[in-house]
Each structure stands twice: as C-alpha cells, then as structure tokens.
C-alpha cells in the first residue's frame, strides 16, 4: 500500500510521472501549490489582475475557478450558454451547475446565452451555414472565442483563464504534429499575451494531467457535468487523448515530456519563421470592432449577421 509522501497516511492517488503518492488533504494542498507556482513561473497574472474564468460546468473549469478563488485571486466567471440539448438538456444542466457553484461561494458569474443574444443555438448556426461537416464544434469554438474576448474587454478584465489541462494541450499538439500544421504549432501556448484588442489568455492547469484535475474536483466535492458534450462523441481530440494515455501507461511522463519539450523547442526558436506570419497585423471588424486577421467583417459577424445584426454592439477599436 502506498503511503502519502508528506504524512505517511494511506495515499489516495499516485502520480506515476512524478513518483508521488499523496493522501486527500496533501493532494488538495499540492494541487493548489502547483497551480500558484505555474501562475508565477509563466507570469500569467498577479493578485492585481482582474481574471475572467471561462466556466463550462465541466471538472476542469470549475476546479480552476475554485483554486483561483481559494488562492485569493480576483476571479469572476463567464458561462456561455450554447443552446445544446442532445436529449440530455446539456446546456441547461451545465448552466445550473455553474450557477450553483458561484452562488455557494458568493462569486460573480456573467452569463451570455447564445440563443437569446443571437437568435439561434450553436447547432442551428452550424446547420444554417453548413460548417463543420455535421458537427458544430468549429462554430462553437469561434463563437466562444468571440464572446470571451468581448466580455473580457467590455467588463475590463485583464486576463482570460481557461481550464485546459495537459491532456488537452498534448492532444492538440499531437493532432497538429500529425498533420504538420506549423501555423497552429506556432500559435499554441499556455500564455498568449494581450495584443491589438485581444485580451491576454492563460491556461493555469496546463501542467496537470486530466486525471489530476478530475481527482481535485472529486476530492474537493465539486459537482460537475460528467456527461460529454453530445457532439464530442467520436471527436478526434478524444481519440488522440486515448492514444497518448496508452503511451503514458507504458512510459509514465510521456505526455508531460512531449508538451514541455515542445514549449522548450518553441522558446529556442523552432517555429520562429512562422511566428511572425501568425502574429501578423490585426484589424478591427467593421461591425463589432473586435480584432480580426483580414479587413472587413470578422468570422463571427459573417456567421451571425444574417439573423442577428441588431443585437451586435460595437466595441471600441483595438
């Protein structure tokens, strides 16, 4: 039986990549310390920043909000209602979980409901525009990125934090390496600085395995939406996570080495040639004022304008 390295009590979790066994109390303590260390080491934000945490109702984002709150950061939440039902009232249940979480802790939650604001749900937007080959995931990502940045700017937040964990990051990296999407590789980073109207984006959990964020939520007793998004079934990202977990099973530490090695190579200039192209000039969208790579309307306004232009509120130019 493994014993907690700190107190010698019976361990509830063993992290093979760190050769570290911990009991419940010391695991929760370790998890918070590691988050604080990552935030400092990668200069994500300080206690003076106003942080907006994007919360979906899943384990990662709620665990992140919980940890930031306990660490004493000024962290408010943003929930985006996507109008996804999937036979399980997915979005409605997610919202209820997030609202209960915020209420229990007395935290400020901003809710943006896509069907209310733009006249249709994410799946309907995808259907109307024939985007995503029957899956609304690309439309969903585009809409969420737009809303997150708009809300952060409108409400004066200096940092936008998401609950992406190491498995998320390693799976994206793996997918982009498999297809050699060099532009995407150059763009992937746990810290994206603010620029030209884009709010700084950070991922304080990027060094945690998904298993660890789930363990934190479980041990802390945080209720979260356990069901997958109905559209996530068969998603490539899940497949790549499973492949990486099989590698991890045989060689503990593989996922961590893979992603940290990538960050090191990037820092040493491995993608410097494409970095400049990726970080090219941004323009203000002629409708909403948010930054976009090409002059004219941004991709979001091209997506939603036909039905819902009256609800778009222009924001100041970057």
């Amino acid at each position, binding site marked *: 039986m493994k014993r907690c390295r700190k107190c010698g009590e019976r361990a509830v979790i063993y992290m093979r990549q760190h050769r570290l066994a911990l009991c419940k109390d010391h695991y929760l303590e370790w998890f918070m310390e590691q988050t604080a260390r990552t935030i400092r080491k990668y200069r994500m934000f300080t206690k003076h920043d106003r942080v907006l945490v994007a919360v979906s*109702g*899943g384990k990662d984002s709620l665990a992140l909000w919980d940890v930031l709150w306990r660490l004493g950061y000024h962290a408010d939440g943003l929930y985006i209602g996507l109008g996804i039902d999937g036979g399980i009232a997915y979005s409605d249940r997610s919202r209820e979980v997030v609202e209960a979480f915020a209420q229990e802790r007395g935290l400020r939650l901003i809710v943006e409901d896509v069907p209310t604001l733009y006249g249709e749900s994410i799946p309907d937007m995808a259907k109307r525009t024939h985007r995503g080959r029957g899956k609304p995931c690309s439309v969903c990502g585009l809409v969420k990125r737009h809303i997150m940045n708009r809300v952060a700017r409108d409400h004066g937040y200096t940092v936008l934090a998401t609950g992406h964990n190491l498995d998320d990051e390693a799976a994206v990296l793996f997918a982009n390496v498999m297809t050699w999407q060099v532009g995407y590789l150059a763009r992937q980073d746990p810290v994206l600085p603010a620029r030209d109207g884009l709010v700084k984006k950070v991922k304080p959990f990027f060094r945690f395995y998904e298993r660890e964020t789930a363990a934190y939520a479980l041990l802390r007793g945080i209720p979260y939406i356990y069901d997958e998004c109905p559209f996530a079934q068969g998603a490539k990202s899940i497949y790549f996570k499973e492949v990486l977990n099989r590698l991890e099973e045989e060689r503990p530490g593989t996922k961590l080495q893979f992603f940290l090695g990538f960050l090191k190579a990037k820092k040493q200039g491995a993608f410097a040639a494409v970095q400049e192209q990726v970080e090219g000039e941004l323009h203000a969208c002629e409708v909403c004022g948010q930054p976009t790579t090409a002059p004219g309307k941004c991709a979001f306004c091209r997506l939603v304008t036909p039905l819902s232009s009256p609800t778009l509120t222009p924001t100041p130019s970057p």
Partner: protein
Amino acid sequence: MKDKARGTATLILRDQTFTVPAGITVREAIRHAGLVPESVLPTRDGELIPEDERLRDGDVIQLVAVISGGRA
C-alpha cells in the same frame, strides 16, 4: 479455479459493467477489463481509492472517466 476461490469484483464505467477476479489490485483489474488506468479514477461509495488496493469478493468499483472532449 483460483478466481472462483477468491470470487469476483465488479467495475462500472458509465453504462458498462466488467466482472474481474478478486484478489488482484484495482490497477490490474482496470487493465484486465481492457481499460487504460490513466483514463479513469477508481472510486468506492463516491470516495477515491488507491490503485494498489486489492479487490475483495463482491467489491463494486465505480470508475470515473477523466477524458473530456466537449466543453459546454
């Protein structure tokens, strides 16, 4: 024969149920069920349990899937 003498335990993952021999560790049982231990967290009565714990006859272990792909 050995398995029969020791009995069996049950692993549950979402709507799937796996019967595994008692006497082996939780980690071995997860692998025995054809699952990857890295992808699940074993719990009993809602409490996280260590993977090196040996299963007893009649044990029911709920596995919490940790992989998520969609974000509401």
